[in-house]
């Protein structure tokens, strides 16, 4: 039940949000040029991080905007939130 700060709306209860999995995985520009393995890497493979993890959230019960967050998966602390297109912020935590 950690609280999430939407970069557009401010702090809200977690029930307003939907998790979208790992962030910073871009859809390939030319899928047809990829091998099966390369394509599978994009579609199926995700990291399973213990520690600081960049992930996507959608404020689905609010402004419906997608954004990114850095969450420590071991403690569920959210260390930063940032908008789509912005660079991943620096943290001193692993």
């Amino acid at each position, binding site marked *: *039940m*950690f*609280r999430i700060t939407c970069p557009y709306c401010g702090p809200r*209860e977690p029930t307003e949000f*939907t998790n*979208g999995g790992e962030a910073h995985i*871009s*859809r390939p520009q*030319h*899928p*047809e040029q*990829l091998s*099966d393995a390369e*394509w*599978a890497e*994009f*579609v*199926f493979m995700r990291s399973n991080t213990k520690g600081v993890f960049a992930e*996507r959230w*959608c404020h*689905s019960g609010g402004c*419906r*905007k*997608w954004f990114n967050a850095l969450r420590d998966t071991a*403690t*569920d*602390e959210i260390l930063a939130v940032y908008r*789509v*297109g912005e660079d991943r912020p620096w943290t001193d935590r692993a």
Partner: protein
Amino acid sequence: MSAQPFRLEQGGLIDRSRPIRFSFAGKAMQGYAGDTLASALLANGVHLVARSFKYHRPRGILGAGSEDPAALVQVGRDPATIVPNVRATELELWDGLEAFAQNCWPSLQVDVGEINDLAARFLPSGFYYKTFMGPPGSWMTFEPTIRRAAGLGRCPEAPDPDRYEHVNRHCEVLVIGGGPVGLAAARTAAASGARVVLAEETPYLGGRLLNEAADSSMIEGQAGRAWVEAVTAELAALPEVTVLRRTCAFGHYDDNWVGLVEDVQDHLHPEERDDRLPRQRLWRVRAGHVVLATGAVERPLVFHGNDRPGVMLAGAVRTFLHRYGVLAGRRAVVFTNNDGAWQTAFDLASAGAEVAAIVDVREAPGAELVARAQALQMPIHARAGVIATRGRRRVAGVTVAKLDGAGGLRGDQAAFDCDLLAISGGWSPNVALFSQAGGALVFDDAIAAFRPAGAHRGMQVAGAATGTFALADALAEAVAAVDTTAPQPPATTSVESFETYSVQPTWELPSALPPARTRAFVDLQDDVTAKDLHLAVQEGYASVELAKRYTTLGMGTDQGKTSGTNGFAIIARALDKPIGEVGVTTFRPPYKPVSFGAVAGQHVGELFHPRRTTPMHEAHVEAGAVFELVGDWLRPRVYPAPGESFDDALMRECKAARTGVVVLDASTLGKIDVRGPDARTFLNRVYTNAWLKLAPGRCRYGLMLNEDGMVFDDGVTACLADDHFHMTTTTGGAAKVLSWLEEYLQTEWPELRVYLTSATEQWAVASISGPLAPQLMADLLDDIDPDPDAFPFMTHRTGHVAGVPARVFRISFTGELSYEINVPTRYGLWLWNMLMERGAAYGITPYGTEGMHLLRAEKGFIIAGQDTDGTVTLIDLGMDWAVKKSADFIGRRSLFRSDTARDDRRQLVGLRTEDPAFVIPEGSQIIETANEQQPRTPMLGHVTSSYFSPNLDRSIALALVEGGRGLMGQTVYVARAGASPAPAVICAPDFLAAEQGEA
């Protein structure tokens, strides 16, 4: 009705002018307003209140509050409101209350299950593990007997008639615990203007100050209780402060989300309960800061016979004395390893009881205490321990022996008669919530207990909850916890012996008996003895988590409040490791039992889940429709005429669709308004087929895939203008399709200028179908020509229906000539009623989802989510025609992966059973041969949709079959339970076309 022989003439918070009648275990007794069941029973001289879980040993009242492990009773007798496992120490009396003993037969006094105690050697720790892991069948053999013999109370068996509610609350400071520390913290926080919630588990604020003589402690110039009253009044006057009594903080979750459960009415006589109020209230509090002022829990000493009724925690004895005016016994022995319990001896003496002995394991208890005790002529036994108790169902005496300081006995033993043994093995900070929050604990030798290592993520701990027992220090901590400006702590003095504490760790007393006969209990609820813990370690369960599960230590409804520290210390000693290194087991919510009613709150019955109804719902109800849930929608399934069966109605509706005219409420269909200069480009990327050239006025069917190539959703989308589309989705898929589209727009293609708006509830939709549909439509439409030549299939028109603006789509899910009329939602019911009225001349028949499913199956149309399950590609469905060659779309690349390109994947086909009357159950497995071989018959696939078709007069089914499209005309078999496999022939999914082709 008996007198109350152990009630004092005066003192306590009870109201002697209001006697209360109650009964326990069938016996009528009397207490006073303000009593708990436990205090009233003790006032009546009753100590035996329960039988233990496993051995059925007599159990009494050990504690005075929620920590009590064993005095559990059943309240009430109505199967709907009966409550099991209620702690007698928390159950407030009301006139006429009936409580019953649990886990005993035929009675509490004479319990046949007591035989388990004699068989104790055959029920060692790990008994359950050992029978689970034993020879095959042993658990099955023992289980019924064990279930009957072991257990707690009886559950209610009828629906709960009470109401419960949830309340959300945000505050700057949540103070948990309403003792002096909690009060001081709340007052200090409130002074800063903060919103404060103070939660106190018992009915009274004041905590330890209520458990001592009135003049023992002075705070800010006032006696303890007077100070409590003053602060209570001060808090009550502040609008931003909420003080909750009878409210337990049961769980701490991330970011200071704390669950509180408040008993609102259980303590009242049923006739005094307000039916506008809930029975219990669950507060969901999000707090900026949490101050834990949860105090400490006293622990018992572990020695042979320590579970006998009449053996009580020393602090609890004082609680009963000072809060309830009850003497727990007239001749007491006090047994301790710390200063605190000496106060119990002094207070008992002041109240007129005799103290037969103070037994202290320490070599030299404090000189001041010794002097006070000697002045009261109490015999003192230092460096000694109680090593046994006697008495049948209540303690009648104890055996005291000198200790050799090395875990053994020395010298003579002495026996004392007594009717009360007050014990104290030290105090453990109540760290449950702190630990739930993930806070680190350290073992502190000075207090012989685990305490918080420090503050933790927005959580401060103050007072006894962090091992600070002296009142002045505790109050200073309370103030500092909420005010960082080095505030002045309240001037405080206390003469309580607890102030100095001075504990000597004592985890297990020696026994004069051989180990096999020593019964020294650690966990009184789960019947776990010290010997069980030693056995667990000996058998290799070398961590507290494993030993806990092996022995069930702390796994009862009390969650080991009194047994935890003793148990961990005994395990540590058995492992020969420091206690701090062995650690504690993980604390998890709930701190104490919470009713399912409180957890469910108002989300029961009709409010369990939101239900959506269409604007036409009222008409369907009037027509006697049978409803089903589709997503959150309530949709008519079929409209049986009076006296007509479900199946007959379905057959009638489906025949009418192909011979007359029928109408379906299709309002639930997902509708998304797609707009913007790049709308076309966007659709071209999310649908598998081509969208760049679809002209305004036209419609197109589209399929959406996930990136893995599997079918996700489908629907018809209409082009309203070059930059404006009306998209439809499945009823259940509307929300997920919208969020999926948004996700791509925002995260992958932010450069596309496209705007999505959910329009599902803006339009009411009636789908009119059947050969007579054009005639009816001609009667209705003002400015649209319904002639199929002028208004062809897969086009749409904007116009009016009887003066009301409408969009009409020529699309069909039945395979018949169809018109889908969309009107603004507020005209929905009007539209439906008008259709029924004007359609009467054509014999219009309303049909429901069941008919819709059947009609589309006759035509071989899929339902995404029924005929697909997330493992089906559009190639598997035989819909390769919908794959554009020209451009990429979501999931396209996956269609060429080696696995998705296989030609032996499960493919959608039709199935015609050899027996036309046999309707295959949906989900049936399809096998290759009629012989169900061992060990495995080749499995070819499964049936996804199956109906009896009235129009074809035979059974039809859709199925996913391995390489199915290459097996046309071949016979396969459908496995059946309890019958031989039924033969069926593979055919194309469009049964209607096949029939027409034959004709």
